[in-house]
């Protein structure tokens, strides 16, 4: 299987490449739970994480994935770096590149920032989330979790609920799930739904019940409370009541439907607190699978020429 230099989005991958990454992640997952979490795939390679936006789980997940495969993993602390002195993104990443970095994992508030970096460095660039554009490794871990639980996503109905407009996770999930043959529906307040994802074949509802009806997977998205100030929604109370995922609403979904969440969860807002439990949702599994998928991605993209 041939991979490009960079993983910038799910948009660039075809179904075979996605499945190949997921297949590789299966064997990676075994490493995580083995006696020695030290495999040799990335020995002698260096991975730099550069997070221009706050993150705990994604950054840690990438760092561990790199370390489990014997890479030298470092993190550039953006807040204390020359970025604060006004250095441009291209110049900062060129500098990192010239230190012999094989792979730059970047999260950035601006859509397209990883693409800009990728054009200007010869290191592999992995997009760890860019603005409202894509979050490819989150989507891959979502697919991995769905397939692990259901065998295949083909013909399955996946309902993504909430702030779709600002969500790079929703977009990456939609691009990939459509390629893998799933049915994707989305629901949320009109102000938080994008205008034109429907042209790709995604159904949009403002009635959450309609989206959840007979769904195989229900995925509420994190709501940023500060969006209330920008008139995206009136209050947390109204949001939770009419757009939140709760036990009552889940009765509309298929029996044993999966509840997933990209995290971190606002308990009681987009997801009823009681549903965030190992027997009710697969959110904890997603986290573990995230490490496995990132190990697969780092290995396949950094070692693409092997």
């Amino acid at each position, binding site marked *: 299987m041939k991979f490009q230099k960079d993983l910038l989005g799910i948009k660039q991958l075809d179904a075979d490449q996605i499945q190949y990454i997921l297949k590789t992640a299966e064997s990676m997952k075994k490493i995580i739970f083995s006696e020695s979490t030290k495999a040799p795939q990335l020995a002698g390679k260096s991975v730099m994480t550069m997070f221009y936006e706050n993150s705990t789980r994604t950054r840690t997940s990438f760092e561990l994935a790199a370390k489990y495969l014997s890479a030298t993993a470092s993190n550039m602390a953006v807040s204390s770096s020359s970025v604060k002195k006004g250095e441009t*993104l*291209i110049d900062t990443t060129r500098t990192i590149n010239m230190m012999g970095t094989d792979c730059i994992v970047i999260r950035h508030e601006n*859509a*397209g920032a990883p693409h*800009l970096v990728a054009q200007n460095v010869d290191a592999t660039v992995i997009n760890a989330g860019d*603005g409202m*554009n894509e979050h490819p490794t989150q989507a891959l871990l979502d697919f991995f979790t769905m397939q692990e639980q259901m065998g295949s996503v083909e013909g399955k109905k996946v309902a993504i609920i909430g702030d779709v407009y600002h969500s790079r996770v929703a977009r990456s999930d939609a691009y990939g799930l459509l390629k893998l043959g799933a049915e994707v529906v989305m629901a949320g307040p009109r102000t938080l739904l994008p205008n*034109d994802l429907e042209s790709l074949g995604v159904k949009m509802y403002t009635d959450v019940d309609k989206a959840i009806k007979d769904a195989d997977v229900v995925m509420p998205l994190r709501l940023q409370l500060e969006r209330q100030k920008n008139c995206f929604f009136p209050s947390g109370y109204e949001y939770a009541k009419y757009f939140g995922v709760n036990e009552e609403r889940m009765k509309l979904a298929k029996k044993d439907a999966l509840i997933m969440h990209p995290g971190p969860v606002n308990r009681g807002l987009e997801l009823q607190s009681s549903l965030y439990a190992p027997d009710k949702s697969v959110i904890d599994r997603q986290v573990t699978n995230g490490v496995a998928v990132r190990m697969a991605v780092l290995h396949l993209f950094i070692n693409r020429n092997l």
Partner: protein
Amino acid sequence: MTILLKNLTIVSTTEVTTGQDIFIKDGIIEKIGTGLKETCDTVLDLSGKIAFPAFFDMHTHMRDPGFTYKEDIETGTKAALHGGFWGVAAMPNTSPVTDNVPVVEYIINKANKFGYAKVFPVAAITKGLEGKELTEMIELKAHGAIAVSDDGKPVSDSNTMRQALRYAHMAGMPVVCHSEDLSLVNGGVMNEGATADRLGLRGITRAAEEAAIAREIILAKSYNLPVHITHISTKGSVELIRNAKKEGVQVTCDTCPHYFSLTDEACEGYDTHAKMNPPLREAFDVDAIIEGLQDGTIDAIATDHAPHHFDEKKVEFDHALNGIIGLETSFAVACTYLYHTKKLSLSKIAELMADTPCKILNLTPAEIKVGNVANITVCDLNEIWMPTPENTVSKSKNSPYYGRELCGKVTTVITDGVLKLS
């Protein structure tokens, strides 16, 4: 000093005449006819080429004073000359802002020093472009400013715009409106639509442009005053202005070559050379803009020539500055996308690029006529070429047309009676 131009097709706003020679003596067109035999200092055989009245651009950013690392009056007027323009109107968002007499005089004097193209300063509507106090419009006009505009920083307060229209009219200053409701832009960086969704970029609703245009129209109508809307880009804007004109409102407008030739898909790959304000729209907007040009709703083609340094463009799309250069490609784009597609005649292009822009600004347009000073732009309609950073005269190289083939080129320019490009 005598010049003989031979075997031209002469285009005016009303007719196209083939096989013509033009005899120019001491800068004045002395004779137009077939087979002229005058002995001249310079004889140019221009068989197969087209003579237009020289063009005028009513919307240019010269960046001088203040931002001369992007463009200055020397390079900007040279770019204008290469695009076939005898003159340009320079927008006031300079530093210091063109809101005072010394800046107006500086601009005029500097342009005269080089003599590539004339520059007519457009003064700010409000001091410092801050949208609060009116500029000294009578005084600015007396020293050579030809219009007022809020380009780049729209007047948000409706009462300020109301008073500006009334005072400017008294002062004999046309008002050129950059119509944009900033509250509706709300952080957007490109057109709202499928492409913005696909790129994960924040969209700008068409309503941001249209709501502001509706306001200008209503103000113009309320006081029966003229208003000019610059760089319209949406189907809705064309409809608003078409209906206002039917009602007799004194509204005129222009559009730019990119709004009838490109769509927001040019932003794919986060190409910042396709980022401008208003943003590139969709195919149905492009069609509506062309219909507006055909039926006279749109009065003029302007370039909105907006040079930016590559450091201001080679950044994240969100952070890239708005604007593209356009002086050197304006005719070629019009020729490719309007003439060769049979949407507009050559006479109509002469009207949109040479005649009406001047009339809106109370200037005398170029006209190829015996007794007139020669202001002639000669074009080859069939020359296929590709704009590149290397063949760009402007100091900045931010064009979305790099790598796109265009058909039609300005080859020879005579302005003020002098052969300046051949």
